[in-house]
């Protein structure tokens, strides 16, 4: 079956089917991660999430298209619909799983009347997910019906012995730390972010704010979130993708004599331009002379950001963030999507109105508060 959103599409009934971004592994099937580098890679395992969903009796609708290694480009046009969003929108599956580190799916889901649940870091096993940014990778769920997404999360979340960073059992992510407040939530609105956003985002936030008590605050380091995100992620991506070298699996250039050519030609031919830029920047920020200035600095700012969030959630149940800024530049907009992955916080993309939405972020392991706010706010 051919479908513009899929790499591989199976003939199954959509109402009980899930789709996977093509960086999540299904045993004995191709997992390309959208890269020529893995064009022929047959996975020897089922990802833990796949195993869990299949065990629940769900069926695999197929593997969807993605940016190479799920790394969004920071320049040029980024508006092509993500495979996972298209697949759910098209009703070829009920839910779709992907690893949205850079925010493309979070934005597109809300803009297309869908939800995206990005759970707390370490809630869902990464076993069988092609690693991109290890400290931020987190499988999330695209869904049209939030309850279906929540149910799916309860199936796939929880400790997995194959991923030592996974925490707790599935229910943990669905239990708020305190009792639910039944509508009496306080939501923080970052004024400095709002000042830079567009009119439609302001409207969406206003709509949400009308249902809840809101308080304004200043989000520190917002002006460097894109930079911190880019520095840390490019280094991790460069490192995680250095395993693709033509030696053990995946693409090997036909054009080589010695070992050096084998490496260089396989990698030069196998990676796309954005991945090359990412790897080069990754090498730059880690190289001697730059490490302290860029990488170490970014890790320190990451801690300051996280500490501020910990402080904020003493007063707020959630933070509302717009999904677009008053700029088309993907690098500028990255700042909006960086907060959740940098701090490992759960976020929920909520569609509001047409082609519009908002992202809610809560403290770690407080997904249920996000769901409750979302339901009450609509």
């Amino acid at each position, binding site marked *: 079956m051919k479908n513009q959103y899929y790499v591989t599409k199976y003939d199954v009934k959509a109402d009980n089917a899930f789709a996977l971004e093509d960086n999540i592994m299904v045993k004995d099937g191709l997992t390309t991660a959208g890269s020529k580098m893995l064009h022929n890679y047959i996975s020897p395992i089922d*990802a833990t999430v796949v195993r869990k969903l299949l065990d629940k009796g769900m069926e695999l609708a197929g593997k969807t298209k993605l940016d190479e290694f799920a790394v969004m480009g920071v320049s040029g046009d980024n508006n092509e619909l993500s495979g996972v969003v298209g697949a759910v929108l098209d009703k070829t599956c009920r839910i779709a799983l992907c690893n949205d580190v850079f925010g493309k799916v979070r934005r597109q889901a809300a803009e297309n009347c869908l939800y995206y649940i990005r759970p707390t870091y370490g809630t869902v096993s990464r076993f069988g997910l092609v690693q991109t940014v290890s400290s931020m990778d987190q499988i999330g769920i695209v869904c049209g019906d939030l309850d279906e997404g929540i149910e799916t999360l309860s199936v796939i979340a929880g400790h997995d012995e*194959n991923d030592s960073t996974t925490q707790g059992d599935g229910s943990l992510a669905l239990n708020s730390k305190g009792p639910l407040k039944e509508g009496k939530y306080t939501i923080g609105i970052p004024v400095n972010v709002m000042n830079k956003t567009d009119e439609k985002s302001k409207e969406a936030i206003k709509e949400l704010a009308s249902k809840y008590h809101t308080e304004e605050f200043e989000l520190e380091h917002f002006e460097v979130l894109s930079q911190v995100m880019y520095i840390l992620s490019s*280094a991790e991506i460069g*490192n995680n993708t250095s395993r693709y070298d033509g030696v*053990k*699996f995946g693409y090997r250039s036909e054009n080589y004599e010695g070992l050096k050519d084998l490496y260089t030609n396989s990698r030069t031919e196998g990676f796309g331009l954005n991945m090359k830029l990412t790897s080069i920047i990754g090498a730059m920020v880690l190289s001697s002379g730059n490490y302290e200035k860029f990488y170490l600095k970014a890790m320190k700012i990451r801690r300051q950001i996280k500490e501020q969030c910990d402080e904020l959630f003493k007063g707020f149940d959630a933070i509302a963030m717009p999904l677009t800024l008053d700029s088309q530049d993907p690098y500028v907009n990255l700042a909006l999507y960086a907060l959740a992955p940098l701090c490992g916080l759960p976020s929920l993309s909520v569609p509001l109105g047409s082609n519009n939405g908002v992202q809610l972020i809560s403290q770690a392991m407080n997904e249920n508060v996000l769901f409750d706010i979302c339901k009450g706010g609509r």
Partner: protein
Amino acid sequence: MKYEVVMGLEVHVELATESKLFCSCSAKFGSEANENVCPSCSGMPGFVPALNKRAVELGIIAGLVTNCEITPRITFDKKNYFYPDLPTGHQNTQLYAPICRNGYVEIETESGKKKIRIKQIHLEEDAGKLVHDYRTDASLVDYNRASVPLIEIVSEPDFRSAEEVVAYLEKIQSLFTFADVSDCKMQEGSMRCDVNISVREAGSSELGTRTEMKNLNSFKAIARAIEYESERQITAVETGCEEIVQETRRWDDNIGESYAMRDKEDANDYRYFPNPDIMPVYISDEWIAEVKTTIPELAEEKYKRLTEEYGLSDYDSKLLTGSRKIADIFDGTLKYVDNPKEVANWILGDLSSIVNEDNKPFDEIDIDYEKLGKLIKMVEKKTVNRTIGKKILQEIYTNNVDPEEYAREHKLGMIADTGFLKDIVNKVINENEKSIIEYKEGNQKVVGFFMGKIMRETQGKADPNTVREILVEELDKYKI
């Protein structure tokens, strides 16, 4: 001009764990190529490292036996470079928070005792193995060793002679084998050593330009390489016709020379950064104390026990604690026969000579402690005599026989019937009247002559002490 050689050591030791550092694959040496490999340790995507607890504990033990401080919070870092033996494109190691710091070991050479300072010990993963294949004229990659846990012990530049280097390595080997940290087999690559070496004028406090020597596969090679490299450097300084550059040199033991390894064309920048997939490991005082109780008796303590509790000689005790293997045979056998002196005699005497004749290093032999113990007991109880006992030992060594069964089957039991022995003694005396006259004249050597004859008559199965008693008694009758 007098020169001084200054050296520091980087010793890699493979930890004696069952499984690898980050996955459950076997860490055993000597399997078929790529048999102990999973997607994780061959670099495939989609796997998260699962840190081996025992590896961390062995790292702690390595630090404890070398007087190091144990770091309370350890982390792991990625070292980036491309080589076919490194499946993930990075090596997991510890740059920023190594598990042990600031230790020392004491060595003893002819010039006396000396402390060698240890700068740090860090945990890391080993790389795979490359073999050149002549049929394909290509390199073959085996990942069995990839991700096997290692520790690297980095010393301060405290060495001044090859003798000190070898003494240090022997000390490390003794400490780690007795503490079950590693089997430290240089020939199997579970212990490897790089030497950083420079020369300077005697008395100077400045360090010269150093080179790093690699591919040192035996103590002998190390000593030779040090001699070669220090001479090369001294000649270079004296004649000025060659400049010493900081470089890595590979030792070729066949030709007895070292040569500079071609500078890797790549920029030598490893781009270390903390591994986000391995969270910090906190090593509490309680954990250290718990681990401490599991450390087996070290050579030094064992030596004390042997000399003080068992009254063995310094010389024998040194030999019996000289390697983990011989110490294990001693203690293992002692469980079955409570006579340390006899056990020591058997191991250092008869067993050693058998092993010697077999042309085998003692550390590679295999002997059943229970059977050895049984044999010693049989001789002690005079079930067999010592000469027969030695024959049975050879059988235990080569064919792993049970000494009791073997003695029974081959009718090697000792003749203890004094009446029967007396008859034989008198028979032999009567056949050699000439010798009786010599005895009467005071020639004691005759006793040995008679002993030999009698033992031959009994096929060696008589208890020599009993025979001697009877013989002297009977001979003395002729004196009157």
